């Protein structure tokens, strides 16, 4: 609250005292004018032509390639966390597949309630189902880190509901990634670094090549390769005598290679054929919990550490064409094919049931998601009236393929039981959508936009959504804006069809536990129903004041109500004779399933101040101060959920976030300092809820331009090596003196300070 008060005072002070910019462009030379930085434009959140993002009817932020470069961040999730306080991402340990694909939230909403676009087209999600309770638990979401940052021209973030414009998932916002287009420089760079603890070594090589084509067309190729060694922050395993560190906690060992092709082939007649392809392959290793020595156990009598090896292949291919009809109507037709395969392998482990003949390496099965989206869009401007309309057809396919039989029979693979033949699925669905979006500019001050979208899904029926937004310029540099929209999120195919069961020894008998589909008899007897879409209502009210073209203040309040949010239920045992009959029939001891469990409301505010100042000596200082506050409250239950789950939803991540981002350029040097304050949050563990104190981190990048072609940088993230509070209890596995000493929901990770050096050449 004190912070909010301080920001308010500062904001008021600025409003009163700011000096307007002097318009001296006319006295500048052409050369100097060509060096002027032009306004940042975005077209997310509206079907109008791209316009200055500060004039948008919805809150929009834009992160440029230059800013990304100066941040020193190497992964897209880290870039977004660096620049956007309402964006949270986690790096988990001992969390199965989640260790290999970073989950994220925006404004407190789940990863799957955020739509991701690449060049304006929907990007497919990963096939991974997050089975572990954390901030992205129970979701299948986009793997943002498949897109190398070297290929990105800018990122537009719409902090607004937009399902009425873009369809499912756009409940809390849209992340729109624009790939580099027409460019004048090829680049190659190398980044190397390690953690303060002398581990987590990382080497990253990026390259970008651009070939100009006729009529300002281009063919760009970006390649990125990243080698990441693991970090180890686990505590000692006190089951051992003497205690020693065995289980891994921290970043996984990871090899990641990406390639992005982006091309536009323009014709003399103004038609353009466009295409992009993004390919990513990741080979990543993390551990499960250590298995202690047992002299009666074959193969590993001295104990063993099962290693999960995830091999992830992800690609998308877009082909489209756009142009104008003779009446100046713009048309755009495209098809995007997206594919993600997550393949589980377990090494250095065994299946106890198979005893001494057990393999020690297993194929534990794989998950595949395919999405094919075809769009046809039209757009026309008539005086002050803009009209857009379009059709969409989408096909989705989700497949679970069982692993080796040895990975799931009996007790299954230690560490992570393989997907069994009973878990296999090959399901698909289709949906059709039609939308209309109109903008009417009454005059240069007042504009209103309305959007309506109809969707029909083959599995659960149809939805209609509407959005109305408006902007009003009270004076030239003061904008008021407001939006109201309904939205929805279709249950993902994975949530409808995913199951992962494994056998455990209970009372000397094998019994089945795990996740069952909502349609399974076990789920049904427990009360599961066919999943229906989450529905939402979103309101936003905000203002933008531009002190000058260079200095602005944005204040945006938001309110999002979501009904029928889909969660993974608590683990349930049979509690009635009828339930026990079904449980016995399938040999089940406990089960969980996806369900439309709760209603929530999330509300908060973003206050963002941007400024740029050029000193007399030509040096330049860019500053951004951004405060975010958001809180989520459960307003209704369709099904009982545990207190732990309630806590994780309402308090499981920082409600407040604060950034002070400064970049100072002088002569050949550029200094970038980002100070972040992550507010307090709490994590549940066992029967307790533990409060985690706020943490403040600093990131620094110092860049030296050797000449026009060569740059070198040194820098670090979390340079003062701040860490989160440890668990507030003693426990072998999860305790301040246990194996995992703090929460997996840490917004700053657990690996501590990271220092790097980077060199890049342009040619």
């Amino acid at each position, binding site marked *: 609250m004190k912070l909010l008060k301080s920001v308010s005072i500062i904001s008021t002070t600025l409003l009163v005292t700011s000096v307007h910019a002097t318009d001296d462009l*006319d006295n500048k030379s052409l050369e100097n004018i060509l060096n002027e930085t*032009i306004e940042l434009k975005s077209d997310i959140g509206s079907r109008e032509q791209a316009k200055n993002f500060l004039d948008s009817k919805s809150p929009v932020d834009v992160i440029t390639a230059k800013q990304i470069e100066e941040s020193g961040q190497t992964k897209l999730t880290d870039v977004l966390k660096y620049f956007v306080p309402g964006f949270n991402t986690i790096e988990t340990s001992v969390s199965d597949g989640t260790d290999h694909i970073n989950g994220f939230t925006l404004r407190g909403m789940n990863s799957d309630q955020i739509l991701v676009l690449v060049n304006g087209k929907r990007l497919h999600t990963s096939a991974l189902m997050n089975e572990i309770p954390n901030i992205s638990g129970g979701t299948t979401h986009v793997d943002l880190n498949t897109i190398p940052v070297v290929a990105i021209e800018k990122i537009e973030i719409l902090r607004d509901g937009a399902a009425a414009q873009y369809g499912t998932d756009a409940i809390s916002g849209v992340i729109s990634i624009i790939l580099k287009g027409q460019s004048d420089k090829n680049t190659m760079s190398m980044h190397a670094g390690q953690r303060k603890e002398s581990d987590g070594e990382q080497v990253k090589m990026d390259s970008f090549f651009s070939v100009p084509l006729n009529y300002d067309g281009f063919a760009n190729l970006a390649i990125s390769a990243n080698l990441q060694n693991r970090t180890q922050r686990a505590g000692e395993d006190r089951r051992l005598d003497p205690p020693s560190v065995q289980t891994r906690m921290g970043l996984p060992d990871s090899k990641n290679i990406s390639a992005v092709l982006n091309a536009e082939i323009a014709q003399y007649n103004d038609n353009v054929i466009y295409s992009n392809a993004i390919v990513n392959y990741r080979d990543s290793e993390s551990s499960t919990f250590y298995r202690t020595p047992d002299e009666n156990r074959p193969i590993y009598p001295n104990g063993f550490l099962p290693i999960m090896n995830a091999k992830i292949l992800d690609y998308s291919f877009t082909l489209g064409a756009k142009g104008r009809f003779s009446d100046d109507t713009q048309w755009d037709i495209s098809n995007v094919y997206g594919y993600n395969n997550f393949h589980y392998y377990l090494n250095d482990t065994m299946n106890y049931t198979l005893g001494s003949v057990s393999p020690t390496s297993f194929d534990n099965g794989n998950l595949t998601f395919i999405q094919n989206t075809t769009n046809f869009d039209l757009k026309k401007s008539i005086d002050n009236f803009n009209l857009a309309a379009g059709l969409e057809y989408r096909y989705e396919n989700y497949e679970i393929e069982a692993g080796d039989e040895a990975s799931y029979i009996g007790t299954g693979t230690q560490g992570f039981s393989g997907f069994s033949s009973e878990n296999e699925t090959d399901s698909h669905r289709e949906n059709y959508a039609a939308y209309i979006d109109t903008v009417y500019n009454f005059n240069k001050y007042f504009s209103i936009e309305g959007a309506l979208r109809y969707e029909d899904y083959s599995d659960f029926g149809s939805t209609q959504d509407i959005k109305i937004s408006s902007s009003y310029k009270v004076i030239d540099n003061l904008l008021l804006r407001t939006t109201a929209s309904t939205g929805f999120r279709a249950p993902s195919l994975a949530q409808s069809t995913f199951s992962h069961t494994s056998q455990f020894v209970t009372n000397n008998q094998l019994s089945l536990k795990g996740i069952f589909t909502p349609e399974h008899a076990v789920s049904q007897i427990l009360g599961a129903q066919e999943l229906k879409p989450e529905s939402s209502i979103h309101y936003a009210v905000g203002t933008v004041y531009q002190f000058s073209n260079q200095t602005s203040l944005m204040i945006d309040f938001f309110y999002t109500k979501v009904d029928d949010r889909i969660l993974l239920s608590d683990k349930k045992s049979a509690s009635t004779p009828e339930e026990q009959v079904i449980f016995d029939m399938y040999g089940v001891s406990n089960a969980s399933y996806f369900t439309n469990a709760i209603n929530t409301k999330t509300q908060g505010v973003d206050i963002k101040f941007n400024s740029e100042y050029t000193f007399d000596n030509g040096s330049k200082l860019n500053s951004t101060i951004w405060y975010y506050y958001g809180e989520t409250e459960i307003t209704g239950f369709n099904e009982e959920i545990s207190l732990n789950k309630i806590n994780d939803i309402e308090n499981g991540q920082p409600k407040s976030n604060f950034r002070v981002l400064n970049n100072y350029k002088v002569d050949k040097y550029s200094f970038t300092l980002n100070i972040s304050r992550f507010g307090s949050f709490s994590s549940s563990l066992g029967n307790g809820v533990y409060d985690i104190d706020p943490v*403040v981190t600093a990131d620094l990048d110092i860049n030296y331009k050797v000449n026009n072609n060569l740059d070198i940088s040194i820098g670090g993230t979390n340079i003062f090596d701040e860490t989160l509070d440890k668990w507030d209890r003693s426990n072998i596995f999860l305790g301040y003196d246990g194996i995992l000493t703090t929460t997996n929901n840490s917004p700053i990770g657990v690996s501590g300070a990271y220092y790097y050096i980077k060199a890049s050449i342009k040619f």
Partner: protein
Amino acid sequence: MKKLIFISILTSIFISYNNLYAYEVEDKLKSIIVGKIAKFINWENSNSKEFVITVYKNQLGNYFNSIHKGKKINDKKIRIEYINNIENLKYTNILYISKATSAELSSIFSHLNQKNILTISDLRGFTQKGGMIQIYSISQKLKLNVNLNKAKKENINIKASLLRMTNIVEGDNP
């Protein structure tokens, strides 16, 4: 660490008192650039007392009028004309084409043949399609393409000092 945050906030407040430069409106810069480019052309003598910039299908708002009002190029007072049909084109030194299809461009270029008019536009592929100077943007900076052969063919004499700031582009029909 709290001190560091406080210092950063104070720094930001300080700079807000002294703003001098700005992120500029793209359309405004384009309008200014047209006037600046004119100073890099060796204009042939003419009897006209005015320097005329004609804007075809204007998409840049009122910037041409507001920026060039009362100013001079080549010691001649600037006059801005707006047209939506090339047939309405009268005497002009510069034709800024703000919006046109490729078919319209062909028609415009045919109409301008050998009339000693400098053509400028921000249309995609403009210089390759037969225009003389194209304004385009990369990474929030405006840049210039010049179709030098086309300019020479139309007797537009561009100074070398301008060419140093531009990319030379070959047109389809040099």
